[in-house]
């Protein structure tokens, strides 16, 4: 019974983290699906989302507003607005001029952008990590007596529900709306889509904006969950999310969701049963192994090399 409780605790923690990874991974996978580049600065956009949310929360608190749902919604909207504007601007400044050039050029440009954004926040807000108020505390406890207690916090429930809402909204948007259909068309064949009268530049911008908005949601959620933010906090999270995207099959949106969950669980099982220090090693090794043995990921389509 104890073992089962311990196992379920790791599972819950893993699914919590994993669902936020999935949110960030969507941004990678959508951009890769459409223009075939790794948006290296995506982790930084997520970090900026977390910072904006924190600024909004602190600002509202200093205005004396204490109604929790209002605070959360305002913080979420602010974070999404700033992050998606950032996503739009980054694409415009750093990626659009180099689109279609040799593969390495957009990637190096993206790395430069990532360094730039990291230091932008670092200079504006300092390098120290800043505490993020835990607005949602408490939770359910399972298990009795002096044995292991499994807990499911309200925060974790919030993360699940928010992720679920975002994913459902995204799936509906992609499958039903006009822009979503255009997105799918562009990701299948950019040239053909543009011949058929789709404004591909607009669709690519929209992809960046959607990805950045979801990353901002993840920024708010993970900021509250971890309890602090710092300018470097996007880098590792971005790498993890990229791993999740590759694991699920890059370019595939359901794949990103699945990959995020699997990666989160794998990580929390490692820290629960082996050692917390090596959980990053596990996820990077997982990334290397997948790329070596199944580069298409779990749900990705095999890519045919055209000559």
């Amino acid at each position, binding site marked *: 019974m104890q073992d089962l409780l311990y196992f379920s605790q790791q599972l819950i923690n893993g699914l919590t983290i994993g669902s936020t990874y999935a949110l960030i991974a969507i941004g990678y996978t959508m951009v890769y699906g459409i223009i075939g580049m*790794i948006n290296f600065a995506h982790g930084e956009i997520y970090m900026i989302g977390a910072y904006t949310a924190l600024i909004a929360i602190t600002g509202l608190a200093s205005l004396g507003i204490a109604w929790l749902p209002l605070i959360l919604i305002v913080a979420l909207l602010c974070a999404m607005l700033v992050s998606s504007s950032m996503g739009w601007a980054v694409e415009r400044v750093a990626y659009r001029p180099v689109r279609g050039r*040799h593969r390495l050029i957009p990637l190096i440009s993206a790395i430069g952008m990532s360094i*730039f954004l990291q230091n932008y926040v670092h*200079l504006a807000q300092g390098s120290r990590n800043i*505490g993020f108020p835990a607005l949602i505390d408490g939770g359910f406890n399972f298990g009795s007596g002096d044995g292991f207690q499994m807990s499911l916090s309200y925060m974790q429930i919030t993360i699940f529900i928010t992720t679920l809402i975002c994913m459902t909204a995204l799936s509906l948007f992609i499958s039903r709306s006009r822009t979503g259909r255009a997105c799918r068309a562009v990701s299948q064949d950019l040239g053909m889509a543009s011949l058929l009268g789709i404004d591909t530049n607009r669709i690519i911008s929209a992809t960046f904006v959607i990805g950045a908005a979801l990353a901002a949601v993840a920024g708010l959620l993970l900021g509250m969950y971890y309890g602090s933010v710092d300018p470097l906090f996007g880098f590792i999270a971005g*790498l993890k999310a990229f791993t999740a995207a590759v694991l699920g099959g890059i370019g595939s949106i359901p794949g990103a969701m699945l990959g995020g969950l699997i990666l989160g669980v794998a990580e929390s099982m490692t820290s629960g049963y082996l050692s917390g220090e090596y959980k*990053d*090693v596990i996820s990077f090794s997982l990334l290397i192994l997948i790329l070596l043995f199944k580069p298409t990921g779990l749900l990705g389509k095999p890519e045919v090399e055209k000559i």
Partner: protein
Amino acid sequence: MAANNFRHALFCAFITLIISYPIIGFNLEAQGINVTLTGADASTIVMVLLAALIVFLFQMFREQIMGGLKSIPHPLPQSNKEPMAENRRAKIESWVLTGIVIFALFWPFLVSRGSVDLATLVLIYIMLALGLNVVVGLAGLLDLGYVAFYAVGAYTFALLSQYTGISFWLALPIGALLAALFGLVLGFPVLRLRGDYLAIVTLGFGEIIRILLNNWTTLTGGPNGIGGIPDPTLFGMEFGRRVKEEGNTSFHETFGIAYSGEHKVIFLYLIALVLAVFTALVIRRFMRMPVGRAWEALREDEIAARSLGLSRTAVKLSAFTIGAFFAGFAGTVFASKQGFISPESFVFLESAIILAIVVLGGMGSQIGVVLAAIAVTILPELAREFSEYRMLIFGAAMVLMMVWRPQGLMPMRRIHIELKRQE
């Protein structure tokens, strides 16, 4: 058209405000557990508004500005002339290089200790950048975990000297060979991957090495690092005030001169200089050998190169291994220079800096890379008041380079033969 332009410009200015005002205009301050928010001072806000205005004006009059920039005559009138003959250019280039090396040999005796120390660091970066240039510039493999091989070189020397008391001169080839072995072992499976996947895998590998160094406390000392790494000796002569090891003599006593701390610094500088020149010459040779041509051929067109019978794995693997070898070289020198190493020195940012040097200098071009290494290391030291903006400028420079001049400041000239014009 004008109204459209105006709307676009307004939109861009608005976006600029959104992405800069919340982050720059408010400061989060942590006081214990409580976080407070303060507005930035008026000058910062004026700057943000000014930035938005500049974006607005630029977008509004974009076509005029771009047209104006194009009509400015090229600053170098020579560029219209016929390019210099290849062999003459190569001759001039090699004379200039020889001159620089000779100057560099005598230079440390004229300047202060601090500048020599900085120059040693520059030389280490030159070695690293030349090595990475083989991988990224010539073979076209984006390696984001290059710093891992640097760490292997440095830690090899540190650990061997700690456990077996090995000397610098023996550790130099061992460190480099071990780094090359790591390159070979990592390269073998991953080189089948496509360009950007390769970049991510090498990045992951670099992080794994760093995390291992950080957490394997019993062997590497974890975050505390390893200290007491010995200095290099000159034919058994030590540069310290007192001789540490049995059988060695001290440099200042042998030559009967007064002890000075500068001797050691200058000696290290000269070692670094010799190794950097060695690196440059070896790689230059490689570039002219069939394997060097094969690197470039594979970079330019993989399918064509393979159809001409080049083995993709062997060629890429050779570039990867050679790059790693020189990183190990640089790592050993670095460990010896610092006397102390910790995983802090081998973070991803370091890889990014080396990559930035290669990109700024011009991928594949040796002179460009050397100049970029000098500029990137020395400029932040000269402009100390801007040093906190160093990485910000780096990032921006990498983006701007890719947008405007992806071939780098001094692009590589391909080796080619020109047919003489028949009279």
